[in-house]
């Protein structure tokens, strides 16, 4: 049979989980990571990264809105999906996660964004006419109170929401790792470290994504990138990445040392079918290279232009590396047989329901959402908007 080597059980020959299931943890990871970056400002008072605070929140929201779409496309029957909320099975992690998703979307992200933008929303509701004005009026919920006391209260509540949001973000993405880590039938996935690995790689990818988006949007707007801000982001990115790298290495060392009955099969796979995506793209290109680049920027004082370029290279490589990690987990975990004596092949289609084009569209869709949100709720200070307007 095409693409099959050795002994493969019939139900293992075709992969059940496609590239869309690779995208799902990738997108939720970006959400969690972007939120953690926002929490640096709100909870940990890292003022240097404030220019990215609102952009991080909007990025998290736009990616979160797209996060269920790969699952909907993969499963089909989208009209059935509300049943997960209406008749959830308490023993199903996936069903319970539906509530976590809704909680994170509404009680954390939407609420925090609304609180943070409320003053602007009220001002725009009073000054904007037409449909957009109506939208702002609806967003005020009919309350125009932006007194100092009211905004102070918003600030306090916002702090609490962010504080609750941090564990929520961890649960949001930890769940994805949990789903894989708890599958005891698959030795590639079955590891209690999986949720932790997913959370830290999510933080790394989300922080990189927001850093790149901040640099790109600032460049597009013709403004000067706040180098102190990107320096600080890069520093936190480096520290988070070290933890991520340490935990992933721990997982790897544990597997090698334990060398259970699945080890030879997995080892063979890493050296053959997964050599390019795992060793070359994930470890060399997506982990070691950006780690060395970020370490170098911490040790050597390059000039601003070089630093910014190095951050862009490191950030882009991290995004590629984390995507490769999701790919290697989801696709890699389905390439070998439970018999540990056979291997199959995944062929990525181009124009199908779960093909490459759909995957690319789903990756770009959050950016479209983000563009719309940025138009309605600009994440940069009013002063900069005015400067831009006068520049035009």
């Amino acid at each position: 049979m095409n693409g099959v080597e050795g002994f493969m059980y019939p139900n293992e020959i075709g992969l059940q989980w496609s590239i869309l299931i690779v995208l799902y943890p990738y997108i939720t990871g970006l959400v969690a990571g972007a939120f953690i970056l926002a929490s640096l400002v709100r909870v940990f008072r890292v003022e240097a990264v404030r220019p990215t605070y609102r952009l991080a929140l909007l990025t998290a929201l736009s990616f979160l809105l797209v996060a269920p779409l790969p699952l909907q496309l993969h499963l089909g029957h989208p009209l059935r999906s509300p049943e997960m909320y209406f008749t959830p099975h308490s023993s199903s992690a996936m069903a319970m996660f539906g509530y976590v998703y809704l909680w994170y979307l509404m009680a954390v992200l939407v609420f925090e964004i609304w609180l943070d933008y409320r003053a602007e929303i009220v001002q725009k509701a009073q000054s904007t006419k037409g449909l957009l004005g109506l939208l702002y009026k609806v967003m005020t919920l009919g309350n125009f109170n932006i007194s100092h006391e009211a905004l102070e209260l918003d600030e306090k509540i916002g702090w609490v929401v962010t504080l609750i949001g941090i564990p929520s973000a961890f649960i949001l993405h930890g769940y994805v790792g949990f789903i894989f880590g708890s599958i005891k039938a698959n030795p590639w996935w079955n590891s209690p470290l999986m949720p932790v690995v997913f959370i830290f790689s999510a933080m790394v990818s989300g922080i990189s994504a927001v850093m790149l988006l901040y640099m790109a949007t600032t460049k597009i707007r013709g403004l000067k990138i706040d180098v102190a801000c990107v320096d600080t982001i890069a520093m936190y990115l480096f520290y988070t990445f070290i933890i991520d790298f340490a935990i992933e290495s721990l997982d790897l060392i544990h597997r090698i040392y334990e060398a259970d009955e699945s080890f030879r099969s997995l080892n063979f796979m890493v050296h053959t079918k997964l050599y390019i995506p795992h060793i070359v793209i994930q470890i060399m290109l997506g982990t070691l290279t950006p780690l060395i680049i970020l370490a170098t920027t911490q040790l050597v004082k390059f000039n601003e232009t070089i630093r910014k370029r190095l951050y862009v290279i490191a950030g882009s490589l991290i995004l590629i590396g984390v995507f490769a990690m999701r790919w290697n987990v989801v696709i890699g975990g389905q390439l070998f047989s439970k018999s540990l004596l056979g291997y199959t092949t995944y062929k990525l289609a181009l124009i199908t329901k779960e093909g490459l084009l759909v995957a690319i569209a789903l990756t770009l869709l959050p950016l479209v959402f983000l563009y719309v949100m940025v138009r309605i709720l600009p994440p940069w200070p009013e002063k900069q908007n005015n400067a831009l307007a006068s520049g035009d």
Partner: protein
Amino acid sequence: MNSFKNAGHLLRFAGLFVIAFVLFLVIRHYYVPKSFGQYGHYRGDAIKDDAARPTFYAGHDTCETCHADIATKKSGGPHAHVNCEACHGPQAIHALADDPTAHIPVKPDSATLCIKCHAASLAKPKKFPQVNEDHSMGMPCITCHTNPHSPAIDTTGTGGKK
């Protein structure tokens, strides 16, 4: 009182959550079937609905009532434990009709049917008869295995095994 006034917008946001939750409960009330959860995590009435569905399979005992000769042939061969309707499809419409001859079943096409079980696969036990695509050279299986109810080829002395 003043702080309560300053929290008006928060109460409105909380109100939205309450409205959404009440709406959820109302929709749930009408959307989820009444018998859901009666026996387990499914719609209890589904059992009654299933019981009321027409019968499609007659069962091999019913087949053998009239086709005792076939049953005898089958009992001596490797297909002894294969139910009639596994190959001939659901035959309740034929077997339970007042005049079975009014609904004569279509004979299965051996060129496509046999391979469903006997296609070679590493996952099957070695002693199970299996053939590759080129085994029949395009001919229907019954060209050689003339009696599909007991398909061994006696004349060759191979017992029909490949």
